[in-house]
């Protein structure tokens, strides 16, 4: 592990998993709970090396179910806590994510996607997009940031904790195996030195600092249909009010584009490469990338594609992003050319090739 600190800005060359561990330190996280699964293991490896130096804690649990629920426990006592997983571990963690959705627990999950379904590959995929955004037996009241670069892994890990503690919805950082394992340069920093505000953690239970406090009874079981309806609708209203504030996207050249390439996560780096190459060739191509895949920037995409004839949707999954695009732009039908490659990487050359077929 690189010997660096968070004093001032530091240019570093790190793997994505190392970046997440450093970012969690930068976000003043108190404790990580985790269970080994590839490709996120090194987040724990780096965290456990950093933890004693920064007065942080770690617990290796017996499984991902436990990692999810111990994280919720830590958060309820007012500590900033997180966990990280992938693939089948993400499946198991959805149980705790559901409780966090219902009880508005500001939990942060880092998901380094691998191939699916089931054990599949330990390398890479974008096949946890639907699971992460809509897993669990509820309405998908979560914030999901899909990162593309190591700089974003750092920036959005810090942002994920702020969003979680501001809005109190479970917040996911959606990376992938390539991001987890590859090295690239980025700048790390102490957010507070840069004048960024870190949203403080607050205890929900066990707050002994507050003398004569009134006790709290938290539950996620409801007796009647109407009672549940009220709770879920209140959450839905909060979610709807929050969505425009947290939604993020990136777009280039959509104003005059005939074809807009839509992608998320690391595939958008290939898409950006294709966009730059095709633009250099004088092609009227656009680039659109949801950074939050939940809430999905459907309105923004609809606006961006107003003058376009086609969308080229590229993803390393079979239609998980495609469904979100269709759902987000349903009132403005446009021809979509899907480039669906479950579990495999997508290169700039391949996107250019697909574009040239249109």
């Amino acid at each position: 592990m690189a010997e660096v600190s968070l004093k001032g800005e530091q240019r570093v060359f790190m793997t994505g998993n190392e970046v997440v561990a450093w970012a969690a330190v930068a976000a003043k996280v108190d404790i990580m709970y985790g269970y080994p699964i590839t490709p996120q293991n090194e987040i724990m490896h780096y965290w456990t090396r950093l933890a004693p130096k920064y007065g942080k804690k770690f617990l290796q649990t017996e499984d991902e179910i436990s990692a999810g629920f111990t994280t919720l426990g830590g958060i309820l006592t007012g500590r900033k806590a997180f966990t990280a997983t992938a693939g089948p571990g993400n499946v198991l963690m959805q149980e705790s994510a559901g409780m966090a959705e219902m009880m508005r627990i500001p939990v942060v999950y880092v998901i380094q996607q691998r191939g699916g379904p089931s054990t599949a590959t330990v390398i890479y995929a974008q096949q946890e997009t639907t699971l992460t955004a809509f897993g669990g037996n509820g309405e998908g009241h979560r914030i999901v940031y899909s990162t593309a670069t190591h700089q974003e892994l750092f920036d959005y890990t810090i942002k994920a904790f702020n969003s979680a503690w501001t809005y109190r919805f479970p917040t996911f950082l959606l990376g992938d195996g390539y991001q987890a394992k590859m090295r690239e340069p980025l700048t790390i920093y102490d957010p507070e030195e840069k004048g960024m505000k870190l949203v403080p953690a607050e205890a929900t239970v066990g707050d002994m600092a507050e003398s004569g406090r009134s006790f709290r009874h938290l539950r996620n079981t409801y007796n009647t249909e109407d009672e549940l309806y009220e709770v879920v609708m209140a959450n839905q209203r909060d979610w709807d009010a929050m969505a425009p504030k947290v939604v993020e996207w990136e777009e280039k050249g959509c104003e005059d584009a005939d074809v807009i390439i839509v992608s998320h996560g690391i595939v958008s780096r290939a898409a950006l490469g294709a966009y730059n190459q095709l633009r250099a060739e004088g092609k009227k191509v656009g680039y659109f990338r949801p950074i939050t895949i939940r809430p999905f920037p459907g309105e923004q995409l609809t606006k961006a594609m107003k003058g376009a004839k086609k969308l080229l949707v590229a993803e390393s999954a079979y239609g998980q992003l495609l469904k979100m695009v269709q759902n987000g732009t349903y009132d403005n039908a446009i021809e979509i050319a899907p480039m669906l490659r479950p579990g495999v990487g997508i290169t700039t050359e391949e996107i250019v090739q697909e574009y040239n077929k249109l």
Partner: protein
Amino acid sequence: MQELKENNVLQPAMPTSWNEETKPHKFCPGCGHGMILKVLGEVIDELGIKDKMVFGCDIGCSLLSWDFFALDTVQTHHGRTTPVITGMKRAKPEIVGVAYMGDGGGYAIGSQHLFNAAVRNEKITIILCNNCNYGMTGGQMAPTTLPGMKTETTPYGRDVEQTGYPTKGPEMVAAVAPEGAYVARGTVANLRQLKGYLKKALENQIAGNGISFVECLSGCPTNWRTNAKQTWEFIEKDMAQYFKVGELRTPQKKEG
């Protein structure tokens, strides 16, 4: 001390840690949960830990205790009460964390959490109500259903060839937990003794010795379809024959 009030009638004294607004409680008539929670409430009062305690309950009948006490309470999922309280205690060791669950939550769906919390000697207190069946879901077989006992999923009686023998939880925890653990099995048929066990279990956590685990033998007349006499007979004879009441581990020494 209980005070003589109107007409010199002895008023029932309820623990001050109880939430009076939710009494009478929601458990079925004759259920053991109310008795276990009463002695637990008395212990909380005696130890004066109400303000630093977090009480966690499971799904199943134990969830009906989600507003039982006048102290911070979290109701979570089947078997997940142990990791939730573990997570709290790890993050904030000053709290006194209690995980309250049934035999399904502790010995079936959440057994990996119980086992591993014991192995790690988590400084929490786990209280498990054993009533030989799944009460809330309508009386199915539990890990603690006695051989030959009829339940909704063993209508001809539990066949140990098919389903194995009842889980002996305290014996398992006592076998795997390191030094400092406190493990006991009490019964609602002897509340004074049960209260003593629960007190030691909480004191053990407060002392920071290790895990504290108390199983409480309890009754479920609704699903057992027993009258009062039969219920007590089942707890005191049938259950106690298989599940031996007593202390299995004390923090001072590891037996065996």
